[in-house]
């Protein structure tokens, strides 16, 4: 399958969204709202959930399925308040020593005048910095689109997993094509060159596990994912210095030097 075909699959509106994963992988979920500063950005949903017998903080970027849901959730494009809400929930998780699981699915951070004026870049930067300092384990699951910094702001994790047909990229293939070739219709070539598939990310060590999609959305799919999250979290809880583990994970990307 070519890379752009995967991009198309990753963007399908009938794919399970973060809310579907949250509703199916956990035995209960208590949603928490708002960034405690200005508002509740519905592009990000989060709260406390039970993963078997383990309380965890769960945060997801939600795209919604129907037209009305998609508008409510801003098509999964968080504004600064969304990132600040996520950070507030992560700091709460740290306080109560709850591990964190994120579900990432965004074409990118919201692109707008207000988002810029309220510090989109600053909000993402703060998340990257503070996530690096979290004293609890973090697993990020990329379920659809992993759009650049807007996705990374919830994926600065100890482990990053990707659905088989999810994509993760520094820029959208359309954006890349319009900058490099001055033609957005060459997005398929750009998608190929950007190496944005789960298989590519795996080969660079940027994702640790690829989740097969044969039975995506079925009860057995969620059950398997849930038990994999549980057992991985148990392993991560054994790591003595979880911050160091996360730091070294990212430190390794492009760290070799030859003189």
């Amino acid at each position, binding site marked *: 399958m070519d890379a752009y075909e995967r991009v198309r699959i990753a963007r399908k509106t009938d794919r399970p969204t973060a809310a579907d994963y949250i509703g199916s992988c956990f035995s209960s979920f208590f949603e928490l709202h708002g960034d405690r500063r200005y508002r509740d950005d519905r592009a990000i949903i989060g709260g406390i959930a039970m993963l078997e017998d383990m309380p965890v903080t769960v945060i997801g970027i939600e795209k919604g399925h129907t037209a009305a849901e998609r508008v409510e959730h801003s098509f999964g494009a968080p504004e600064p308040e969304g990132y600040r809400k996520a950070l507030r929930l992560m700091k709460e998780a740290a306080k109560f020593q709850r591990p964190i699981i994120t579900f990432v699915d965004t074409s990118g*951070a919201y*692109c*707008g*005048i207000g*988002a*810029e*004026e*309220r*510090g*989109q*870049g*600053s909000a*993402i*930067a*703060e998340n*990257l*910095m*503070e*996530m*690096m*300092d979290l004293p609890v384990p973090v697993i990020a699951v990329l379920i659809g689109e992993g759009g*650049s*910094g807007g996705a*990374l*702001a919830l994926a*600065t994790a100890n482990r990053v997993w990707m659905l088989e047909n999810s994509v*993760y*990229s*520094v*820029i959208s293939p359309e*954006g*890349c094509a319009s*900058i*490099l070739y001055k033609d957005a219709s060459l997005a398929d070539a750009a998608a190929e*060159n*950007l*190496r*944005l598939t789960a298989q*590519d*990310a795996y*080969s*660079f*060590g*940027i994702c640790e596990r690829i989740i097969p999609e044969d039975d995506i959305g079925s009860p057995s799919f969620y059950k398997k994912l849930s038990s994999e999250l549980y057992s991985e979290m148990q392993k991560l809880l054994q790591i003595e210095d979880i911050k160091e583990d*996360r*730091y070294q994970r*990212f*430190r*390794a*990307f*492009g*760290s*070799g*030097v*030859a*003189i």
Partner: protein
Amino acid sequence: MKEIRFIYHPDNALEKAGRSAEPLHGEAERTCPNCHVTMKESAFRNSNWTCRCGYHFRLGARERITMIADRKSFQELFQDIVSTDPLSFPSYEEKLRKAQAISGEKESAITGLCTIGGFDAAIFAMDPNFMMGSMGAACGEKISRLFEYASEHCLPVVGFTVSGGARMQEGLLSLMQMAKTSGAVKRHSSKGLLYITVLTDPTTGGVTASFAMEGDIILAEPGATIGFAGARVIEQTTRQPLPKGFQTSESLLSHGFVDAIVPRSEMKAAISSLLRMHRRAI
């Protein structure tokens, strides 16, 4: 994982080209892009590359450091870290060579140690002439190492940003530099050490959304474009006219994302004074 290695080319023509504090502009006259006045290049240079209308010309990284560091105090670090082409991205190698030739630098950021007004500091400056200061793995590595060095030696970091964002030709590896550098900044910060960023024209994308906005103190040059998403993209997406002064230093100051706007002529004094104020009492 596959290890990504940087390769140093000792036969690189740039090594032989030598360096100079002088800019590499060939022409004797320059026109201000803001007020269109044309003056002798030396006239602009003598006024720190600012026009009498207030316009601040973009500066190469080395020129920037020359302007800020005490005379002959700059000692470069990590200069052997250069970009490779990890994705075999079409025509990237060629673009890198061109960027190196135009800028006279091996990477989009230069890093090192210096004194500023007599105070020790680690310093980095990005170069707009090197693929518009875009951040790839080598740039991220140099910035991260500088923060690690500064943490180890208890030094403040002063950084001048100018960047179009993450370098797309390095794909996800360049995206990861945002988290990597942020981790290094956080460690430095947790040691109680000072980080001053100076945002210069333009600072956008993945650099804005990482180390540019992570300073304890964030300064900006007048009239710089600073933002996350590009203005043109926002205009196309929202189909709304952009407000006057959108994404300028002045707008960021009024929205609370910049501590102060400092003209170039006062930059060294401002930074020296901040360094003095952060000297540890004990």
